[in-house]
């Protein structure tokens, strides 16, 4: 007797230990990310920073390095958590914001806004004076729109056909790419710089003020998704069983797509396209902490942040004084991984 209670307690304990370890790792790597850069700081410099002796150093740390680390943590967390939720929703470890059009939809939204938005009388002037509020909104709209379209296309008799989902994702991404390319030809120099920046992905422009806005989006999205972790667990048995267990599956699907778009749309508006974080992180963590949604999401949030922070530290130092786009690094790690997942479930994907 009391087996159940003991098992639940043990699961909780394991989760707590892993999450605590990840939290410590997050802090350590965040410190490392702040110290390491094209001009590497020593611990002695760090001490002088705390006493405030060196103004240049203080600015470098607090205005450039630290916001960038924070942005990496927010972005990595948002992408990894979205990956978790989407994979349970689609019942497949291949679902990810980059693959189902959420990210490229966000770019579409932003590019459209930057290019045409300013021409619209009232909207244009607000866009110009408060881009930090409007760009996320545009990105969210594009992300949700394209994500929903891919999802609709993938439905076959009420169930998601994974083969069609991947193909629809490719089509959506290709369309978004072509659309962006077309608009680039229409863009002026200044707009062009902004647009190319998005398609490569970089944490270069991190600023405390935008971090706060993005942090709010990600925090709200993550908390709301955590509230749905029970439903997402049940969804792993398929939609039919979820209905039998009292889940309003139609509502959950819309909610999850909406929340992932809410998190990743605005993020993409600022850091551009960073792929594969949502694919790699949840998969590895499932092996460590198990597939139960709540612990998995929390661990993914932290690990996604650590992963992106490490990638960024690498990106800004490896070809210093120049810098690699971070999307290049995540893709270099992510694509072999994606291929591996694809091969592993070859049979299931057959159309």
């Amino acid at each position, binding site marked *: 007797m009391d087996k*159940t209670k003991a098992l*639940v307690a043990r699961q909780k304990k394991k989760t707590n230990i892993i999450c605590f370890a990840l939290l410590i790792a997050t802090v350590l790597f965040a410190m490392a990310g702040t110290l390491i850069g094209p001009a590497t700081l020593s611990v002695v410099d760090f001490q002088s920073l705390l006493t405030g002796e060196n103004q240049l150093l203080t600015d470098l740390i607090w205005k450039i390095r630290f916001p960038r680390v924070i942005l990496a943590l927010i972005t990595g967390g948002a992408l990894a958590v979205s990956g978790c939720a989407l994979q349970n929703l689609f019942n497949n470890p291949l679902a990810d914001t980059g693959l189902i059009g959420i990210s490229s939809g966000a770019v579409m939204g932003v590019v459209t806004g930057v290019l045409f938005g300013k021409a619209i009388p009232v909207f244009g002037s607000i866009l110009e004076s408060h881009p930090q509020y409007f760009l996320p909104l545009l990105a969210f709209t594009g992300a949700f729109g394209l994500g929903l379209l891919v999802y609709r296309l993938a439905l076959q008799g009420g169930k998601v056909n994974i083969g069609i989902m991947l193909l629809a994702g490719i089509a959506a991404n290709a369309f978004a790419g072509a659309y962006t390319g077309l608009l680039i030809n229409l863009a002026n120099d200044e707009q062009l710089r902004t647009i190319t920046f998005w398609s490569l992905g970089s944490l270069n422009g991190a600023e405390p003020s935008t971090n706060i806005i993005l942090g709010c989006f990600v925090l709200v999205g993550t908390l709301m998704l955590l509230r749905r972790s029970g439903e997402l667990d049940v969804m*792993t048995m398929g939609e039919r069983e979820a209905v039998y267990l009292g889940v309003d599956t139609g509502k959950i699907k819309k909610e999850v797509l909406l929340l992932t778009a809410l998190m990743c749309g605005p993020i993409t508006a600022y850091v551009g396209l960073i792929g594969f974080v949502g694919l790699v992180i949840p998969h590895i963590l499932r092996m460590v902490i198990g597939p139960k949604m709540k612990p998995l999401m929390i661990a993914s949030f932290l690990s996604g942040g650590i992963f992106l922070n490490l990638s960024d530290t690498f990106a800004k130092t490896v070809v210093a004084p120049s810098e690699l786009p971070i999307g290049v690094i995540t893709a270099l790690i992510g694509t072999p991984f994606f291929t591996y997942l694809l091969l592993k479930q070859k049979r299931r994907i057959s159309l």
Partner: protein
Amino acid sequence: MIETRGISFDVPGKTILNDLNFSLKKGSFNGIIGKNGAGKSTLIQILAGLKEPTKGEVLYQDLPLMKISDLAQKRAVLSQEIPVSFGLSVFDILLMGRFPHRPLSSNDFEFVDQIIEELHLQDLLETPYPHLSGGERQRVQFGRTLCQLMPFDDLSGKTLILDEPLSAFDLSIQQMVLKFIKRLQTEKNLTVVLILHDLNWISNCCDHVLLLEKGELQLEGRPEMVFTVENLKKYFGIETRIILNDKEKPNIIYL
């Protein structure tokens, strides 16, 4: 308990169910039989609230079924085969049975404990579901539906719906499962709706049998009324001899 009023179900170009009217009493054991493609599974999915009939309506305890918000607390469904896409443990799956009753309290954990004992699942608890054999999976899913129905003190007003639940089981486990359900029905007044291919199990367990053919209800009544040599020839195309067993239930011998 459950009443259907003229329910039909159409898919483009085809009628799956046509104008079904019947009622299932509280605490009764109901078997649905018929050849493949007769519409049995569709009917069960409608009774379970998964599909909405194209015409007509289903009443559950005199309320329209589709409008009952806490339906999952009142009826559990065991499907034929349930894949789980990630490696959740047996224990996680069992606990899902309590999902409709969330937030969970220590009572819920005790219910799950009870089911683990009853179905002897102790050794499997931490095994990932995808590693289980077909029979083990189905035993776990059966446990999960029982967890959903708990507590067993009063099951009147609750329904267990089963769609071919036994195909993955060895004969001994088939018997164990059916006896378990039968006991819940006779002692605790649980209502049961069941699809089975094995007509003898149906005859032995059920007190009410519905025979479907091409989406229409052809016969309904007590097993001894439905299972006659003539009916079995007419609706299943099989030669049989019927003998009554010591419980006065017809036993079908295939010739």
